[in-house]
């Protein structure tokens, strides 16, 4: 079992300090931060490209995607940072994310004409295998459990 003798590398800047900072990137949290990272990269690059090249086609949809991108990037950062304050901030953002997904998802279904092109959160994130609606729920469960 070669792998199991590997010494865990220093966790993160905040993890080295003697104060018992809550480490959020461990166990299931690693999978969570990976998925949030993927969603961040996907949403940020998508909205940057769309806003830069074809903003006029669907301003509302692309703006909403940009908001989603900011939320994902911020949650990824707080998860990596760890600590109690980051945990609370991430919890609030996950709740905001869930509200956003549900609002935008319902909006796109109720008024499709307002959206000439899809957003990240269209149809509750169907284009992303419903990860956008599942992620905040699992995120909040994990963040509640990670509390000291």
């Amino acid at each position, binding site marked *: *079992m070669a*792998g199991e003798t590997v010494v865990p590398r220093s966790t993160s800047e905040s993890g080295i300090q003697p104060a018992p900072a809550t480490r959020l990137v*461990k166990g299931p*949290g690693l*999978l969570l931060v*990976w998925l949030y990272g993927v969603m961040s990269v996907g949403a940020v690059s998508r909205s940057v490209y769309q806003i830069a090249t074809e903003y006029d086609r669907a301003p509302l949809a692309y703006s909403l995607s940009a908001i989603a991108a900011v939320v994902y990037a911020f949650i990824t950062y707080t998860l990596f940072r760890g600590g109690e304050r980051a945990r609370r901030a991430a919890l609030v953002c996950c709740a905001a994310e869930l509200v956003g997904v549900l609002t935008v998802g319902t909006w796109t279904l109720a008024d499709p004409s307002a959206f000439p092109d899809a957003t990240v959160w269209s149809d509750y994130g169907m284009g992303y295998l419903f990860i956008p609606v599942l992620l905040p729920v699992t995120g909040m469960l994990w963040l509640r459990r990670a509390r000291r």
Partner: protein
Amino acid sequence: MLDALTVAVSAAALALAAWCGFAAFRDQPTKDWHFIGMAVVTLLALVQLVIGVVQLARGEKADEGATIFVAYLIGAFAAVPAAGFLSLAERTRWGSATVAAGAVVLAVLEVRLHDIWGG
């Protein structure tokens, strides 16, 4: 050529996802053999990246635009190694689960790449 590579990368990614998913199921961290598997998949994605860029340079067009095509090629190349690095620091089943998730992401990117190129 590109189509064959897309199929090959997708199949390799799904196999890696199943393998690492099985390791996670058996409560095992990623081991040396898993990392060799990740290296193989990453190599295939790198070949795909190079050939995709060469095709563009030779004047072929991607249906949805060259920028998006190259962005997805880079994303496909980076997905599995990034998950692999994360699993180095997490010597539990969750490291294996993360690599499996990374491989699934790669498979999804391959499907998108196929659409973007216009297969």
